[in-house]
């Protein structure tokens, strides 16, 4: 059933997701939203990897995706911890307020 959907669609979808993510990272100032946008970009790439993996009948792509998800989970844990520390320090998570590496 998956094979009935042409690869173009997957590429389109993941490109759209990636651009949404990229624009979100660039445009938003709320750190959590920026963070979510980064996840979105990662998952756009994951989607593309899985799609091509199926197309080529090659399991390598899917293995990569698992790794990326595992690493992304770890990254989320670290990232959220950093965010909570930032909030404790400056009582805000606006990234524009973090323009200096000091108080």
């Amino acid at each position, binding site marked *: 059933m998956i094979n009935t959907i042409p690869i173009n669609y997957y590429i389109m979808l993941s490109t759209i997701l990636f651009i949404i993510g*990229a624009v979100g*990272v*660039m*445009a938003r*100032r709320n750190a959590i939203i*920026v963070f979510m946008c980064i996840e979105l970009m990662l998952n756009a790439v994951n989607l593309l990897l899985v799609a091509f993996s199926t197309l080529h009948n090659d399991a390598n792509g899917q293995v990569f995706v698992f790794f990326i998800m595992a690493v992304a989970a770890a990254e989320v844990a670290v990232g959220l911890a950093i965010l909570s520390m930032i909030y404790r320090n400056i009582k805000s998570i606006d*990234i*524009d307020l*973090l*323009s*200096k*590496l000091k108080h």
Partner: protein
Amino acid sequence: MIKLIGLVPLFPLIGFIINGFFGKKMSKSMSGAIACISVLASFIVAVLIFMEVSASQQKSNVVELFSWINSGTLKIPFSFLVDPLSCLFLLIITGIGFLIHVYSTGYMHEDEGFSRFFTYLNLFIFFMLLLVLGNNYLIMFVGWEGVGLCSYLLIGFWFKNDAYNKAANKAFIMNRIGDLGFLLGIILIFVNFGSITFGEVFGKAASIPTATVTAIALLLFVGAMGKSAQLPLYTWLPDAMAGPTPVSALIHAATMVTAGIYMVVRSNVFYSISETASEVVAVIGALTALFAAVIALLQTDIKKVLAYSTVSQLGLMFLALGVGAYSSAVFHVTTHAFFKALLFLGAGSVIHAMGGEQNISKMGGLKKALPVTFLTMLIGTIAISGVPPFAGFFSKDEILAHTYEHSQLLWFVGSIASLGTAFYMFRMLYLTFYGKFRGTHEQEHHLHESPKSMTIPLMVLAALTVFGGLLGMPEFWGMKNWMSENLDPIIIRKNPSILSHETEWTLMIIAVGVAISTIYFAYQMFMKYKVLPAEKEADMKPFQRVIFHKFYVDEFYDAIIRKPLDAISQVFYKFFDKQILDGIVNGMGDITKWKSQQLRKLQTGHIGFYIMAMVVGIITILFFSLIK
């Protein structure tokens, strides 16, 4: 025994290391004893080796210690050459060196730099031995530079006095000019012969064009001019008297300054081939002998008199080398080492007694207070004046006889120089030891004979001065000239005397007559009419003033070399350095600074901007890589 030649320079090196590293922790007598014993040990080994070489048929022995430089075609083993010439120098260096070490233990006793002094002195002996033992020009050069370094260190030994430091610098820089010539000579030898080992080079010398040999010989002679204080590079030696007196005796009279003569004798093959080079050596030697003798006539500093006398005597030795009388030159080196070391040490004893006073116009009548010093110095003075039967007479006479064979004009110049020698030496003797005391009352009270450690070396040297002439008795007296026979294997072109016995007798009688009448003249002048050196410059006659100021040579060098150099340096400093070089360097800095000022505006700290820049960058790169 010859195999053990390495021990000879090793002992002073050990002494140097011990005194250099632990000297401060040891007592004075301990460090003095180490220094003396190390040189004595070398002397003993040197005597044994000397006897073995004299006895054996094998005159030239090469002892290779280790392979030193091995690079492509350049192979230089660290090897020593043991032959009659180097053995003779070994004996002079270690023998007189030992006596002067012993003397120094007395002379330097009150000095705070006692162990430092002996450190330098031992190092000097080591390098000097290296210089005369080396089997190739490179080892000789290492020793050559090493003795220059020690000379510098010892001239500036009392480094708290700025004038002494300047004298040390002067000696070092003047020597550097000569050393450059020597180095160029060595390079030229290597280029032409493909080797710098004595044996190989001298063997091939005849097959090289004479012009090249002349160039090599002249460059080597430039080195000798610097080290042996010949015109025009002699001005450092009188200033070198700033060092302690034993240093003047050892380095600036007996050994180091004769290194130039050793080098020319060692390279006599070149000088035998090149007539031009020999002629230059002879003329420069004769001129130096005369020039320095004239300057010495009016000096009032006891050490300066002796220093100019040394320059003059070295000039005579070069005159001998130039006319091909190599063994006579070495003979004169030997006797000169005896009597000049004696005179310097005697002068040191006088200075010691006078509490540091060196001006002979402030001395006088020291005969009674310093009997041993007086007697030994009298012997030295008679010897240097060329009165038989003392050592100086024989060597000087031999040189003048050979010079007469070669050129009567040079003989005349040499004779005038030795006439001057007799005059200024007796002037110094009379002013110092006779007449009334002219110093302060305190000095008169302080006068005393020097301790045993100082007087014994004086006596030994006096004995050598008396009997040193036996080393080279004139052949026309029907005696054996040991010196010339001993050095026979080293000298390539023999120089048998072609003069008739009558001529030789005449020359000898003229020389002695001139010397004695000069001494009588000096006696009349200083004993009877009690002429004293002019107190003030205004009292001098114009020609005296010129001589007193050493013909203004220092001032002349100052005007033609130092001042223009300073002026050029100023121009370069102000224009080239300040404007151009500093401009370029500072300009670079300014540009970087300005660029950074502009670029740092990009670093806003806004994450959004960074990401934007990143995305734009990635898109640009992708875009360009896709359309390619």
